[in-house]
């Protein structure tokens, strides 16, 4: 019962803030709405017993990636963006997209067979997970066990992205001004 209440609160929150991202004129408002949406989805992860991923979502996604976004928006000083729903063709596009989106959602909802159970693969029910040492420990064992190679490659990927970002965002120093 409380799970249902929590689900509806978090779901409605996530969807309304997501709409805020897409519909707001001010880019900072969009960014903050996205932060809230990510936090609501982190709450949904916690409801799905994925505690580690929930904590990581808030720390990394909402707390670092979105800070990067917010900063770029602030420092590029874009002001009020006038492109929300402008000329008539924009409205038609938005309406068509909206209808397609609704069609997609209805299709998924019908095919998801609300109420069916899916056969389990590893028997890791929440009770078993708690007995085996907790969600974080098991995820850690998976990351350092079967998924070790992707883990190391993710590390290399982050270094590559770091170097690439610094190279691309650096301001070109005019060689003449150095003298």
């Amino acid at each position, binding site marked *: 019962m409380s799970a249902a209440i929590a689900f509806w609160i978090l779901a409605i929150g996530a969807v309304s803030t997501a709409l805020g991202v897409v519909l707001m004129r001010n880019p900072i408002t969009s960014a903050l709405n996205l932060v809230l949406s990510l936090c609501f*989805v982190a709450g949904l992860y916690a409801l799905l017993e994925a505690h580690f991923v929930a904590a990581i979502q808030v720390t990394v996604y909402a707390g670092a990636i979105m800070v990067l976004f917010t900063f770029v928006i602030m420092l590029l000083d874009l002001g009020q963006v006038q492109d929300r729903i402008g000329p008539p063709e924009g409205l038609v596009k938005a309406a068509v997209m909206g209808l397609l989106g609704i069609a997609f959602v209805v299709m998924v909802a019908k095919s998801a067979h609300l109420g069916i159970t899916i056969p389990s693969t590893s028997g890791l029910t929440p009770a078993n997970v708690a007995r085996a040492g907790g969600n974080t420990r098991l995820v850690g064992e998976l990351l350092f066990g079967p998924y070790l190679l992707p883990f190391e490659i993710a590390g290399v990927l982050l270094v590559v992205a770091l170097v690439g970002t610094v190279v691309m*965002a650096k301001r070109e120093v005019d060689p003449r001004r150095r003298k």
Partner: protein
Amino acid sequence: MTPDLGHYLTLSAMLFAIGATGVLVRRNALIIFMSVELMLNASHLALVAFSRFRESLDGQVLVFFGMTVAAAEVAVGLAIIIAVYRSRKTVNIDELRQLHG
């Protein structure tokens, strides 16, 4: 009514559709980028929901890697947007038409 796999998938589809609408309708590169992140987030939600209802943790590990990749992608993407802004003084994609065929 306990939330079921179908509920989570429907929610994920809704978030994905909202994100896709944002990508196709908005004209500001940064907001398009944020809508892409929303879509990524929606797919992560579907992964975690499946992980929970199939009683395995592989979906959560995949989401962990997805977040890492999202971080890398955001960093590089924003660097590109900054570089474009510096040379063209705009992030409106209607005005960034040099590669248009």
